[in-house]
């Protein structure tokens, strides 16, 4: 219904536009005189009339004007230009950069500056770049736009936000996420509630100068989002519609899809098992496998009586002439779908000398490729600014969002569709079969009864069926969200303003999980219902005094401020069972109620801060800031002080470069600062906490975790040096180097659990991140009606622990802390793998071998049990013995050690190509990463050796060891024989190169000539086709290292979604 309403509005606005059509049409393109690049956002005004327009992103404009009129072209940072029409219908204009006015405005912390006057690192991304991607929110759209920013898109579920990392891995156990600021207010809501189309720009602040003003929240970068305004624009209506299709275009793992092939492998597995365990002869083993194949694995879809009729023991494959009773479904066919994506936006805006406004309505319906996974969102925004008095400006930014997200089939257990699709042995059907192999009608829901394995004795995911559950169940988030800001700015005297702002964010999210009344886990209790209601309130008060003035060649700005923030999130949980109406999601529909629960998470933050910026002739730049933050998260040591200094030198303003034809612009900059982080410690890390347990209706306080009342901020000292340049008309770029030492790390220090707990949060240890980032754009071709720009950005960085926390047992720093597949130790990164090393398969018996370092205590020159060094990095070698290398078939004896591989890539970033020819614009964005490794655990599961029928295999299993003498690196299958239990345990065998090259976005647009569309009353009309995630190359099909921070795979992951869409935008 709402979709129709929006369509109507769109049509209506078209009609209105036509009614106002007038005069003749002049069109043209505005470019920059320095590099010929098209200039978007240039105001084009008919002198003496109130007709105006703006150039689009490609610099094109069209406007109605009388034949003898004059057009005024203006843009900040460029010298305005007036041109007479003189009967021309095409008017291309070059604007000259205004050397003194500098270039584009960049919004930074608590203020704005220009790119050229800024001493820090701030990369501005235009909204247009973000909006050309088919994503629901900023986080995914940011991928590839900024050097040093990595976007980890952990789920293809529509409406989820990606994980963003700025400059390496900032902490060990603390927070690593950047601070998000929306229209000046630190943001605690959900990025998905902000319509991508409302974003004017996003600026990523990376170094200390840029982020220290955010004090304790700036250590992992800051992303400043500015939403659109109507400033400087005549009243306009703009509408766009975008229709597309989502699909599972990127391949999944290659797995065994043939039931016969699966049966053959299973037979072999049983055969080997009986030999491994029982020492059977060939005949005995054959008999054993024949007897077990049907019963043990429940592999019984063929018209045979027993295993000997099914399998040829020589070829170990299904005999010819054996027919299936029925064809088991390929589960993927029922799990995935091609689905629709609709994105419609209508925007209004305008301004006069006192007021400007922008308002928008958005509708997004984004359906995932996995069944019942979707995201539907309505957004509305009002941005208003009004000059009440010459000394008073007031304004409002207000955003509302209502969304519904269905997440069916994505739990990290047997409810996962993705786990089922890859790991379901191909012999098991999706739908239950009767004794004749026929599907059974479903009396409750229609269709057929899904197979839960109850009668078929399916060994994988017994008693569950994630596709059925995703079909009949509900897993939904209904979220209503408000965020905004009201402000009043007082001009006290010239240059002195007092700015007062109140930011507020609110959401109410109701998560609803319903399990079906008739099938699945809750069938025995008549269905079940669960609600978790979470309500978030966040407010922020800011009082800021700013003084800005110019004294001759000296530009000066200073500010002082106080800010208080308060965050409060309340949870309420209800659950029950026994649904009367199987479809109702209300609790009066529930017969049996379970106990309810609820709690609050909250923190407050109070801050005082100030900043000074100074420049002389725009050539010598200096800035400094200081901030003192107090946080309720810390019990005894609440307050921390942070600050930075930065300096810049614009060499190209100096005499000696004044007339240089090559170096048009050159700036050197450096900064140093202290920044902190308070996240990642939970909300109450200072306390020893207890779970409240009901013990016979009396309260019980069960010890949960140990607090640390002395815990405080972790502090990063960050140094940066960089250069920004523009060489002729060919190349613009930025290169930056940073070194960031983080001390007082928030560290989950492990302790021998016999003390009563396993870890404690401490401030200890140091971590160093250092890296080089570059962002280069080459203007390769340029002509009057074509251009080609090629941009490349990237980063290379190192991460190193420089000090480990003190072990109170010894008073010395800990030697090693093992964290899953990684080991933390001085001199190593937090993503250096510390694993057992797989040393191949013994050709004699097909068993896995692993490397063991040992001390040859009995001097027999071979490894014996008990001589192994379990963990090489911790081995002190008290007797100074020679360390020898050997191999073992006992996984537990193998040595864990650093094998020199790390998850940190050598180089990663993006390639951006933009080209235009006449009315066409093409952009292509590719993401790349080289030189890292990742642990492919999902593949390890598919290469496992579990009992037959309990898991599917990757097709690489076809390379397995089969007989004595086989040289291979895939061990034998042996039905989980006790000797082979660790074949897929963590080892270097599953470390995989994490290199990838991905076609992130490609878009082709056509902008109609203004004289064609002006009779329709349009000032601008464009159409485009766009595609996301069309192609992805990695070391293995189905392996997507960009979907996790460490690159590791996960068998439950919703792998990336591909979208192809077409859209239209019209402006009146």
């Amino acid at each position: 219904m709402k979709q129709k309403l929006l369509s109507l509005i769109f049509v209506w606005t078209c009609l209105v536009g036509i009614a106002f059509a007038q005069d003749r049409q002049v069109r043209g393109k505005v470019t920059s005189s320095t590099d010929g690049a098209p200039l978007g956002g240039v105001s084009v005004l008919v002198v003496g009339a109130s007709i105006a327009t703006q150039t689009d992103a490609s610099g094109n404009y069209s406007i109605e004007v009388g034949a003898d009129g004059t057009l005024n072209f203006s843009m900040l940072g460029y010298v305005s230009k007036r041109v007479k029409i003189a009967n021309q219908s095409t008017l291309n204009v070059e604007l000259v950069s205004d050397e003194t006015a500098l270039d584009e405005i960049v919004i930074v912390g608590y203020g704005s500056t220009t790119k050229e006057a800024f001493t820090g690192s701030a990369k501005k991304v235009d909204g247009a770049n973000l909006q050309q991607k088919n994503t629901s929110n900023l986080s995914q759209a940011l991928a590839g736009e900024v050097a040093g920013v990595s976007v980890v898109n952990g789920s293809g579920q529509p409406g989820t936000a990606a994980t963003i990392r700025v400059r390496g891995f900032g902490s060990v156990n603390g927070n690593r996420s950047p601070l998000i600021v929306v229209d000046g207010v630190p943001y605690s809501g959900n990025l998905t509630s902000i319509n991508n189309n409302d974003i004017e720009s996003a600026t990523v602040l990376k170094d200390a100068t840029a982020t220290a003003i955010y004090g304790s929240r700036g250590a992992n970068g800051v992303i400043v989002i500015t939403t659109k305004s109507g400033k400087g624009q005549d009243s306009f209506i703009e509408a766009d519609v975008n229709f597309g299709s989502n699909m599972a275009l990127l391949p999944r793992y290659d797995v065994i899809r043939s039931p016969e092939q699966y049966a053959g492998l299973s037979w072999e597995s049983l055969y080997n098992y009986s030999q491994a365990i029982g020492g059977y002869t060939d005949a005995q083993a054959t008999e054993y496998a024949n007897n077990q194949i049907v019963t043990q694995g429940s592999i019984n879809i063929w018209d045979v009586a027993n295993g000997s009729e099914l399998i040829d023991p020589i070829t170990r494959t299904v005999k010819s002439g054996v027919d299936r009773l029925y064809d088991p479904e390929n589960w993927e066919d029922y799990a995935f779908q091609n689905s629709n994506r609709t994105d419609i936006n209508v925007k209004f805006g305008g301004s006069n000398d006192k007021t400007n406004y922008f308002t928008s309505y958005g509708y997004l319906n984004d359906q995932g490729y996995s069944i019942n996974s979707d995201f539907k969102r309505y957004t509305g925004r009002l941005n208003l600014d009004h000059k009440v008095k010459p000394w008073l400006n007031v304004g409002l930014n207000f955003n509302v969002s209502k969304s519904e997200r269905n997440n069916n089939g994505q739990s990290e257990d047997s409810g996962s569709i993705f786990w089922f699709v890859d790991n379901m042995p191909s012999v098991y059907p999706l739908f239950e079969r009767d004794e004749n192999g026929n599907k059974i009608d479903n009396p409750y829901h229609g269709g057929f009864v899904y197979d839960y394995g109850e009668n078929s004795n399916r060994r994988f995911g017994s008693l569950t069926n994630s596709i059925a559950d995703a079909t009949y169940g509900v897993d939904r988030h209904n979220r209503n969200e408000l965020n905004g800001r009201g402000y009043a700015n007082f001009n006290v005297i010239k240059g002195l303003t007092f700015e007062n702002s109140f930011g507020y964010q609110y959401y109410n999210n109701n998560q609803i999980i319903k399990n079906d009344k008739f099938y699945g886990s809750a069938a025995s209790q008549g269905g079940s219902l669960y609600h978790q209601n979470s309500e978030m309130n966040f407010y922020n008060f800011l009082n800021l005094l700013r003084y800005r003035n110019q004294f001759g060649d000296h530009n000066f700005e200073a500010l002082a401020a106080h800010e208080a923030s308060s965050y409060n999130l309340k949870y309420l949980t209800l659950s029950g069972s026994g649904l009367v109406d199987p479809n109702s999601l209300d609790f009066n529909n529930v017969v049996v109620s379970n106990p309810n629960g609820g709690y609050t998470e909250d923190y407050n933050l109070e801050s005082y801060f100030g900043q000074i910026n100074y420049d002389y002739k725009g050539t010598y730049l200096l800035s400094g800031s200081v901030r003192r933050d107090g946080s309720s998260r810390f019990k005894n040591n609440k307050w921390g002080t942070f600050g930075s200094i930065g300096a810049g030198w614009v060499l190209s303003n100096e005499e000696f470069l004044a007339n240089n034809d090559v170096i048009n612009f050159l700036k050197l900059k450096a900064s140093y600062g202290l920044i902190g982080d308070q996240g990642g410690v939970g909300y109450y890390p200072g306390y020893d906490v207890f779970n409240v347990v009901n013990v016979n209706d009396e309260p019980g306080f069960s010890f949960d975790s140990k607090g640390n009342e002395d815990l405080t901020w972790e502090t990063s000292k960050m140094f940066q040096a960089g250069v920004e340049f523009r060489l002729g008309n060919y190349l613009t770029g930025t290169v930056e180097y940073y070194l960031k030492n983080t001390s007082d790390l928030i560290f989950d220090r492990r302790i021998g659990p016999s003390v009563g707990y396993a870890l404690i949060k401490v401030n200890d240890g140091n971590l160093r991140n250092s890296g080089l980032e570059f962002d280069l754009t080459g203007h390769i071709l340029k002509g009057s009606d074509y251009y080609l720009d090629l941009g490349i950005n990237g980063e290379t960085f190192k991460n190193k622990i420089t000090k480990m926390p003190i072990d109170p047992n010894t008073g010395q720093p800990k030697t090693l802390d093992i964290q899953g597949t990684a080991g933390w130790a001085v001199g190593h990164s937090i993503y250096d793998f510390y694993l057992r090393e797989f040393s191949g398969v013994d050709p004699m018996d097909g068993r896995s071998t692993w490397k063991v370092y040992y001390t040859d205590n009995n001097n027999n020159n071979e490894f014996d049990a008990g001589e192994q060094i379990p963990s090489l990095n911790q081995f002190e070698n008290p007797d100074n013995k020679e360390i020898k290398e050997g191999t073992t078939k006992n996984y537990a004896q193998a040595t864990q050690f650093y094998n020199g591989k790390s998850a940190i890539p050598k180089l990663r970033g993006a390639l951006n190509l933009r080209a235009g020819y006449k009315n066409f614009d093409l952009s292509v964005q590719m993401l790349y990463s080289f030189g890292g490794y990742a642990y492919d655990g999902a593949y390890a599961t598919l290469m496992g050796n579990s009992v037959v029928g309990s898991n599917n295999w990757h097709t690489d299993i076809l390379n397995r060891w089969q007989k004595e003498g086989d040289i291979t690196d895939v061990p034998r299958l042996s039905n989980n024989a006790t000797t082979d239990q660790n074949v897929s345990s963590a080892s270097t065998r599953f470390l995989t190169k994490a290199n990838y090259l991905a076609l992130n976005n490609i878009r082709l647009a056509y902008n109609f000539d203004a004289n064609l569309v002006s009779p329709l009353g349009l000032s601008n009309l464009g159409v485009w086709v766009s595609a996301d995630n069309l192609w992805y190359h990695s070391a293995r099909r189905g392996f997507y290292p960009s979907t996790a921070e460490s690159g590791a795979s996960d068998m439950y992951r919703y792998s990336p979604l591909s979208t192809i869409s077409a859209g239209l935008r019209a402006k009146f």
Partner: protein
Amino acid sequence: MKRKFYIILLAVASISTVACKKDFLEKTPSEQISNEQLDLLAIQDPTILNGYINGIYGKMFEVGSGGTTGHDDFGQKGYDMYADMLAGDMVLAGTNYGWYSNIANLTATVNYTVNQAYMPWRYYYSIIYAANTVIESLGGNDANPEEVVKAQMIGQAKALRAYAYFYLANFYSKEGYGTGNEKILPLYIVPGTVNNPKSTAKEIYDQMVDDLDDAIVKLDGFSRGNAKHAVNQSVAKGLLSYVLAARGANADLQRVVSLTNEIISSKEFNMTDSLEAVANFNEAGELQNLQSGFNSVSTKSWMWAVDLTLANNLDLVSWWGQVDLFTYSYAWAGDPKIIDDGLYAEIKDQDIRKRQFDEDLWPINKFFAPDRRIGGQRNVITDYVYMRLDEMVLLNAEANARLGNSAAAIASLKSLLKLRFADEADYSYVDGLSGSALLKEIYLQTRIELWGEGKTYLALKRNKESLTRGSNHLFYAGDTYQYNDPAITFLIPQAEELNNPNLNK
């Protein structure tokens, strides 16, 4: 000019006065509760401190109390299952989901990296830490507070500490109690922040005995009402009986005899009768004796048990889920736990306990949710038993037999068998037993009576027996293991070896 003055005033006032109230930066948790909040609450209502003791009882059935998210991590009853599988009498008859498979195939015991080696260690030491914290807060190990309530809290805490050390000493010490000089476990009797080295078995057992002796004194007169989750004096005596029987000196066994006699003769509990022991059905297949099923705390023989309700939020991750066909969980979903066929064969046909198992050897007539609907119990409200009187009777028989008091041993044993056989002639053969044959019979009856209750492993170790896996084991069928075989005792977990540099000092 006036206006400017006002604005400046406003600005200065705003920046200085909005400076927040003093308590703006004070926040306390509400999902969980901190000891400081509890201390404040105790000023108003001192009885709330008893919640610290209750919390330890809560941990005994808390999901995740072993520090993992495993579906075999649900407190004491989870480790009872480990014990039953290591002892071989409980057979894991399917591995569809694979919980317990590395216990059943004896790889968890030789691999110190796996969670199954870690969880019991983590769980029992967290009980010890909690008990130490309570004892410390009430004046320490030597305290004898005047206030009865406080003394009783110390008594319970000490008993719980001994309980935890006792299970650690079984699970992590190959010999059980060997010479006493073997170093087995780190010992903590105060809450600390530094790891201790291993102490000897003698030191550990001496501490347990001291703690339980003191607990028995302090719990004299302690009434726990109708609830059975708390350790009262009888439970403390029962725990002490186990500890002493495991140490096994003659003087220890003498005390076991007298302690168990005290418990039995106190009449606080009755033995599990025949109607409670096994389900009976009419011809229509309907359950006739609702008191059967080992599912209710109201069973008169249960000495130490907990009444589970919806409020405890237990579901498939629970002992009931793992063992009971009638609970929606793993037993039903392809990982059934059944009786070893060798042991089943040794149960006499006339013994009503033979009927506790169906033809597939599933224990569906011993343990079952009362509804008896397959996969029916979704939220677990059937109860957990930790100790019952029948154990005391069997311990009494065993201690007497070990001391050579055959007559007393036989009398105790028969007091149980009388409830398991309809005809006295079917068990009168025990009258003719003595010496090791009698001891073997008592051991066999212990295994039969307490199948699935986590006690056989303790009996195996203290009697220094061996086990032979029946033919229905998925792994190592037919193999025999001595009580001190490394395959049936856990190694100290990697997390301790890595993070406790003092361990072997």
